[in-house]
């Protein structure tokens, strides 16, 4: 009886300790078993252990076909999806029980774009600097590397470029704003929003309130709220005009933003995608959300087109980025050369990155982009301009938004969204957001300053 009643709490009896002890024990047990079987199968050399996520299964297939003699142990895992913390907890345990060649991972694919700053900095320090292993000419051709380059070390390569663009529903825009061009400044963008609230309620200029919206509006406006300026040193100044101006502009048109995110049931059931006149979103959102066959009840093909995001309120032409995956090599690997070679292959091979049936997002590696982009023909309203916009945006990601050992997404979702739901504004949430980023940074052992 007792057990059935307390069943739902059984996951962690007596805090985390029991779980940790159990997991360590289990990890050690499975580890030694796997090691033994691998050793008997191939006594000569230790396999390279690669952790990949489900979306990268097609990459693995290509790699196996092109490297038939490679000694690689492929391990499918969650990809640290939505920052679920798998990598942190596994690395934590390996740091406690010891990393073991052929058992613990040599190469890891990570779906969370900020985590090189989590796993590569104290208390983890578990990522290998790739500079000696991947040539400069290759590294220089990968875009969006600001989230991988930490204190002068290259701790990961970007798999795909997830820069933000302004997605516009050309049909709706022509209908509601005849003769007008999509906005090029945030002022104009907010004015369009106010006009929608007045004349076409129920239509939106964007979504606001999802965890990644700090990366949409704050990152895209050079807001220095999450900017690493040294080893474990953060510049965070929510009072900067780059933060406050964008917040008050969004507040001025708050009714023209949907609070439902594209992955909620409400988004699908309310056909929200068909009510988005505009949407500042990542490159991948164009194909993932808007075509009718995407499962999000989108408006269909040949309707959406990409435009540059509005220029920052300080005049800079920059943009933020939402998502995008990382390839990382652990610093405990016994085969750094082989591991880095695999990472370089995955990141740059045209067989993977130029083939839209293998990879879903815009390749971060520039030479592979054109061929991949040609697959967008027939998807968007004006493919030539959309492709040009995407290429331009890919090179304009602002470098002042840093990879850090806390999740701004999760802080934003927990502090700004509840306020918005309760009728609050972005401006009022900005201080809370800043305060919580500061607390999270300090508890991770960082020093926080509000001025350089």
């Amino acid at each position, binding site marked *: *009886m*007792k057990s*059935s*009643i*307390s*069943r*739902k*709490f*059984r*996951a*962690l*009896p*007596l*805090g*985390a*300790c*029991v*779980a*940790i*002890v159990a997991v360590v024990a289990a990890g050690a047990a499975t580890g030694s078993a796997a090691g033994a079987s691998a050793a008997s199968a191939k006594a000569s050399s230790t396999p390279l252990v690669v952790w990949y996520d489900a979306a990268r299964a097609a990459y693995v297939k290509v790699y196996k076909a092109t490297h038939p003699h490679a000694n690689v142990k492929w391990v499918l895992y969650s990809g640290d999806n*939505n*920052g*679920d*913390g798998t990598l*942190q*907890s596994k690395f*934590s345990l390996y*740091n*406690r029980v010891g990393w073991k060649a052929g058992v613990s991972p040599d190469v890891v694919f990570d779906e969370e774009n900020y985590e090189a700053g989590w796993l590569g900095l*104290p*208390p*983890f320090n578990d990522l290998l600097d790739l500079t000696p292993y991947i040539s400069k000419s290759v590294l220089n051709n990968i875009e969006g590397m600001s989230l991988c380059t930490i204190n002068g070390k290259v701790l990961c390569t970007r798999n795909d470029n997830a820069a933000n663009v302004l997605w516009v529903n050309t049909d709706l825009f022509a209908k509601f704003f005849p003769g007008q061009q999509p906005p090029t400044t945030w002022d104009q963008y907010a004015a369009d929003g106010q006009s929608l609230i007045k004349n076409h309620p129920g239509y939106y200029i964007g979504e606001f*309130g*999802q*965890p990644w919206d700090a990366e949409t509006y704050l990152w895209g406006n050079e807001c220095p709220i999450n900017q690493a300026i040294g080893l474990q040193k953060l510049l965070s100044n929510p009072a900067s005009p780059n933060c406050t101006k964008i917040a008050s502009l969004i507040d001025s048109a708050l009714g023209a933003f949907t*609070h*439902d*995110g594209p*992955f*909620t*049931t*409400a988004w699908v*059931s*309310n056909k929200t995608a068909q009510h988005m006149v505009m949407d500042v979103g990542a490159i991948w959102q164009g194909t993932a959300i808007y075509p009718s066959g995407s499962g999000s009840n989108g408006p269909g093909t040949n309707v959406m087109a990409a435009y540059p995001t509005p220029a920052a309120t300080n005049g800079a032409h920059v943009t933020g980025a939402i998502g995008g995956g990382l390839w990382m090599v652990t610093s405990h690997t016994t085969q750094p050369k082989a591991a880095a070679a695999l990472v370089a292959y995955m990141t740059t091979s045209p067989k993977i990155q130029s083939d839209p049936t293998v990879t879903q997002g815009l390749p971060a590696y520039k030479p592979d982009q054109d061929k991949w982009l040609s697959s967008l023909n027939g998807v968007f309203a004006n493919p030539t301009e959309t492709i040009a916009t995407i290429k331009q945006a890919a090179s304009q990601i602002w470098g002042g938004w840093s990879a850090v*050992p806390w999740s701004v*997404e*999760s802080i934003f*979702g*927990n502090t700004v*969204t*509840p306020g918005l*739901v*309760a009728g609050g504004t972005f401006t009022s949430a900005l201080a809370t957001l800043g305060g919580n980023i500061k*607390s999270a940074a300090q*508890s*991770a*052992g960082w020093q926080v300053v509000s001025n350089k």
Partner: protein
Amino acid sequence: MTLPSATAAPGERARARRGSRGERTRERPPAGTSRTAGYFFVALYVGLLLLLGIVPVVYAIYLALSPPAANGGPDFISTFSDYRFVPAFEHVVEFMAFWLVSQTVLVVALVLMLHNLTSRVGAVYRFLFYIPGALAGAASVIVWLFMLDPSASPFAFVLHWFGYAQFNNTIAPANLPVIFAIMAFWTGAGGWIVVMYGALNNIPHELLESAQMDGANAFHTALRIKLPLIRKWVVYMLVLSFAGGTQLFVEPAVLGTASLGVGISKFWSPNQLAWFVASQYSYYNQAAAISVDLLVFGLVVAAVLVWRGRLFEVE
């Protein structure tokens, strides 16, 4: 096994030696076999208790009180000033207030009413109450996620009465303790109703009959006779529920994942916070410190309940 004969009374042993084999087995076996089995089962329990209970507790206390390594997070004292510490305990205390009160009042009321029904009807209701409890924790949270989402719930109209148009309205931070209390009630109450019903069935029939003859109606019998007799079971329920409730983990964790990271943090409850700092920052000392705090909290409250409720007194 020499233990049983060693503990047997000398006279008895002498008698056994004198008597025939048949007599001996007739005289002594119940004591002997039950004791061996008893020690065996207790040994199993003690073994598991040591391995999964005592050793981790000792280790947690050791870890909590030892100074963390460089970059290993806060020590025992500065854990209290962590910005997530007080909110997490506030959340769980609020949750417990809603849950323990509603569970105690409703379980006792329901079981007293059930006990007055004829046994066949009572059995049907007992089964009905138990059904939600048959869903394991995580599964029941998933069910509740649908119930609480206005765009998916069959009871969306109820949510609309409260003015909740979106899932994010329902799971506003202020609502969370109540939501978790409701979830915990539905999964836990059924089991306790079955336990309490069993306790009520142990009340001698003569006692209830004599009460009836003395003119007590059903209401009086329930309140004056039955309730005092199952008081210890109510205290027992409180002690166990308190221990389980302070360790709240699954509900906020699953809800946090299902809400796509909106509205509920990964360190909503103290147990979550302990897991978070341990697994995400390798701050094992801090995690152990929080676990020890939870343990002390649970032990103190249990001690008060046991003492005030005179749980172990023999009448």
